[in-house]
């Protein structure tokens, strides 16, 4: 069958992606500008026999998602700014206990209640470091409605494959705008978590395979195992043993760091001979793309570097361009977040400039082009 062509919002495409990935549980709480995700899932999920619940708050929604995932259900929640802050405690729990789940954050203007209906990209660092404690994070950042569909599926796949929480960072522009999307009749490569090959007696819930990822039994399958947010050993029970604590935190990082090739995804435009690299992500990358094209028309060798996986940051991919770069520009809808990571990786080899905006308006191509012209 041929794909269906539709005009959808990014939030709607996220729902289509979640359904294509086989979502079985959604727990949420209404918050602008992510609410359409909950509304649409509330309509669609009972029709396919899966579970939709609106919880009493964001904290409980995140908790419910983790509980559901432990029964084997592919689980997701969606939120925005203030709600994302509330989810952080249990987000850390999901990462530490290695329970797969997807958290969508449609970024809006902040801090605090801020600009609920306006875009921003100011939760980039909250996505990285919002929950307490040292932890790895996977966060993906789509630039279009169609990419939101595919990255939602990818978020589920990465969550299931690496047994972790995956954050999908939309911004209000991508979440709310409507554009063309081709929805395939069938999606290949939908992943589910690795199950144990041993019975209850031989099962050690946090004993990893060679890939550093432990197979995951579902609650109710007779394994009768323990899950705790306390530091735990391979048995799943708490331990204060510093050696075991070190082994656990080390493995959690390594299971991500050893697989950067699989996890990290970027897009570049006209970077082959670029001397000025514009780094941008999400909706801002659309403005940057326009600006780079306009710069080329003026004979300026500019290119776009777009992190699609924003965490882990695509450091190796960026560094490969360093020898050819004379200037680096980072455009983002905040007053300087990802630019810190870019600066860290550029490490003084080229000047790094910001096109930064925190007033709730999308950065325009004109703004970025002006900066390109200024620094060339």
């Amino acid at each position, binding site marked *: 069958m041929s794909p269906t062509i539709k005009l959808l919002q990014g939030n709607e495409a996220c729902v289509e992606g979640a359904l294509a990935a086989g979502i*079985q*549980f959604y*727990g949420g709480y209404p918050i602008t500008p992510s609410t359409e995700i909950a509304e649409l899932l509330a309509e669609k999920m*009972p*029709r396919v*026999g899966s*579970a939709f*619940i609106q*919880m*009493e*708050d964001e*904290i*409980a*929604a*995140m*908790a*419910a*998602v*983790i*509980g*559901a*995932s*432990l*029964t*084997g*259900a592919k*689980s997701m929640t969606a939120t925005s700014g203030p709600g994302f802050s509330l989810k952080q*405690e*249990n987000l850390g*729990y999901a990462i530490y206990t290695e329970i797969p789940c997807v958290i969508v954050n449609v970024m809006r203007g902040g801090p605090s209640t801020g600009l609920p209906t306006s875009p921003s990209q100011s939760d980039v660092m909250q996505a990285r470091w919002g929950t307490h404690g040292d932890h790895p994070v996977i966060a993906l950042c789509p630039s279009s409605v169609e990419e939101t569909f595919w990255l939602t599926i990818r978020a589920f796949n990465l969550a299931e494959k690496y047994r972790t929480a995956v954050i999908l960072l939309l911004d209000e522009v991508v979440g709310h705008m409507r554009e063309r999307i081709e929805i395939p009749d069938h999606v290949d490569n939908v992943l589910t978590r690795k199950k144990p090959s041993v019975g209850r007696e031989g099962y050690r819930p946090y004993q990893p395979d060679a890939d550093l990822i432990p197979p995951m039994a579902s*609650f*109710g*399958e*007779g*394994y*009768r*195992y*323990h*899950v*705790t*947010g*306390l530091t735990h050993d391979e048995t799943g*029970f*708490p331990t204060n043993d510093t050696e075991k604590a070190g082994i656990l935190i080390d493995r959690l990082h390594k299971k991500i760091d050893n697989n950067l090739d699989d996890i990290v995804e970027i897009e570049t435009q006209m970077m082959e001979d670029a001397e000025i690299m514009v780094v941008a992500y999400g909706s801002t990358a659309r403005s940057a793309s326009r600006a780079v094209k306009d710069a080329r028309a003026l004979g300026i060798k500019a290119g776009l570097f777009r992190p699609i996986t924003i965490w882990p940051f695509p450091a190796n991919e960026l560094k490969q361009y360093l020898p050819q770069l004379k200037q680096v520009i980072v455009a983002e809808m905040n007053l300087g977040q990802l630019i810190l990571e870019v600066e860290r990786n550029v490490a003084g080899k080229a000047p790094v400039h910001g096109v930064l905006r925190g007033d709730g308006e999308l950065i325009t191509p004109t703004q970025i082009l002006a900066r390109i012209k200024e620094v060339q």
Partner: protein
Amino acid sequence: MSAYEKYLRNNRLPHILCSGCGHGIIMGAITRAIEKADLDQDRTVVVSGIGCSSRLPGYMDFDTLHTTHGRALGFATGVKFAKPELNVIVIMGDGDALAIGGNHFIHACRRNINITTIILNNNVYGMTSGQFSPMTPQGHFATTAPYGNVDRNFDICELSRAAGATYVARGSAYHAVMLTDLITKAIFNPGFSVVEAISQCPTYYGRKNKQGTAVDMLNAQKENCVTVAASAKITSDQMQGKIIIGELHKSEAPEYTAVYRNIVDSLQAKEMK
């Protein structure tokens, strides 16, 4: 070996609780109730938050989930709603359930989702060494109430009933046999059930409030608790300072996962047409 011992992870014992703590007796009552209710050990999930009581599931041989402070019911709701065929039992402390988890608690009651909740009430935060909880009586002492507690305390059972729980009971560690019976009935209730289990914390609450040894505190439970039947026969003057134990509320209401299942079924029936 007692029949209920098969529900314990004997290799995890001894437990970390203080000597004289009432929580072990209550864990015994919970496991005996599970045995009486004949729950399938492989299809039963025990969920807890953070605190002394929340360590109990670690000693119980089921799928067990030790979550974050106050959030046990959020996690448990996810487990139950995703897989309604599982039996879900939640063990919380008084601070855990009613302070940081108070919002989750009243909403779980309101939904009437089929979860059995046991709140171990020792009137104090024990794990963090004796701060006052929403169940510390006014005027009583705690490390954060050195001049007497300013706060008033909740009545857990009244709160549960008002919020919509369909089975509400109170028992005590001293009345362990009765407590087992109440928890068994709570498990059988096809909706949200709350059992307040009065426990003693001789280490912190008892010491701060000069309540003597664990035995003294258990004796106080014996003296102060009056059954529902007995309470009907004594004057209100005689009831001063007493605590009513037994079954306090029973009602019928549609169960959350069943209501949702009905919606799913009717939608799918429409699709078939």
